């Protein structure tokens, strides 16, 4: 450690910021999903005609049997159940809320796979797996998954 001590005088810290220009294409399936959230305030899923699994968020191919799924759209409920969650305890500007806030996996009724989203309207310490929540749609569209603003507990 003595070596560190003698040369610390010229150590310094440089603050920086990395920018990553990005173009995100939602794809045909993703676009239809977002557009339904935006225009109809409706959560859509796709059902695999082979194994019957309902994906929400929808995807183009089934995980299990690689069947193409983009034709089998199903309307899902805007209510669901928390299957897992985490409490975000730090602040950063890429994060959608000020800490502490809850990010949860929510399986909406009718779907077999969970959707990641924010849960609000409850003390993060009281969130539990199995809790029922419902989607609150955003007033202003961003053409993203955040056309659902957040989920909140069903009272």
């Amino acid at each position, binding site marked *: 450690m003595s*070596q*560190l001590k003698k*040369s*610390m005088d*010229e*150590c*310094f*810290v*440089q*603050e*920086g*910021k*990395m*920018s*990553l*220009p*990005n*173009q*995100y*294409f*939602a*794809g*045909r399936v*993703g*676009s239809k999903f*977002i*557009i339904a959230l935006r225009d109809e305030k409706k959560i859509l899923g796709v059902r695999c005609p082979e194994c019957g699994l309902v994906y929400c968020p929808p995807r183009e191919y089934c995980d299990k049997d690689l069947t193409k799924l983009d034709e089998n759209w199903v309307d899902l409920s805007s209510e669901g159940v928390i299957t897992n969650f985490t409490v975000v305890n730090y602040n*950063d*500007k*890429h994060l959608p809320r000020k800490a502490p806030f809850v990010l949860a996996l929510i399986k909406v009724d009718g779907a077999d796979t969970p959707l990641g989203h924010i849960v609000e309207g409850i003390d993060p310490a009281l969130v539990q797996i199995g809790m029922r929540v419902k989607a609150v749609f955003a007033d202003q569209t961003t*053409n*993203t998954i955040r056309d659902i603003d957040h989920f909140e507990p069903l009272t």
Partner: protein
Amino acid sequence: MAEYFGSKVEDIFNTMPARFLPQGVAGVDVVIGYDISGEGGGRWTVTIRDATLAVAAVAELPKCSVVLISDPETFVGSALGKIDAAEAFGAGKIKFTGDITAVLNVLPKAFSPFKPVVRAGAIIESMPERFKPEKAEGVNLKIGYDLSGADGGAWTMLIKDGTCTLKNGLDSDCTVTMRMAADVFVGLNTGKIDPAAAFGGGQVKIEGDIMAAGTTAKLFGKFEAAGAQEKKGEELISLKCIPTINQRFATGTHMGKWFAGLKDKRIVGTRCPQCHRVLVPPSEVCAICRVRTDDFVEVGPKATVCQIDTVYYASPDPLSGQVRHTPYAGAYMVFDGGTPYESFAMEINPKDMDRIKPGMKVRPVWNTERSGTFTDLLYFEIDD
């Protein structure tokens, strides 16, 4: 023959060979009969066996695995998706006799979906709508179209005083007359046939003023097949964004010395106490001997070029997101007083890009404003 939703019953059967998907029907052996009674209807058999397809129009249906009975409108409508086939079946407008599962399981895998057949007549008849008067100022033309084949016909189009009028039949006094098979005409208008090949290969015969024929294309908007618009209307979401990630770079003990050196226009390295090689920029540990290297030495600032890299494709600068101007070049160099083969890489002055060669002497060009960061050293240039 009667058309339903712009298509004929026979179109569905005539396009089957082109829509056939042999890989979807391995092991299938069926004869499907179609009994479509009504105007434009008829009877057909579709035989799928050993991954091959045979379609035939017949007077009487032979023994079939299954027979589909419908009327022309329902049949065409459900093929185009304009009529819900399940509903039509429920309402008794589509009936089956025989093994219905042969139809339900085989057909969706055997054929790609039916799309309306584009007919020459439809293209010609849409020309007055696609006419652009503003492009036709002073144009006075009489164009004859003589299209041979099943869907062919003859039309005369008069372009005069910024108007476009179309009539059936071929006038004898046309400025230019174009003769070709109707399917070639369709291919040209839908972009499936290359005009140069069609004209050069003699598939299109032009009589009269060839130059006038060449000018007609710009007088009309592009032909778009019915149904093509629906597809075009599909909204797709694509977002552009520049996410940023905050970074914190701590120099540590040795790079701190390096940056302090740059501020004073000095190049600093470390010498390994065991192998005595000089590491530039300074490294805390000699990667070969695995011992701490705390012996700071000053080298350069001039150096000898070992190798040059010219970059023609630039990745975005991670700090600004901007893509830099290409080409640019960097050089691997050994500082005076450094160890051979222990090279340092740095950009070179763009003006020297064409001249620089291995073995040349280079000198650093310093930023006038230096704050102990990596922009203090701008680049190296040929020392002459």
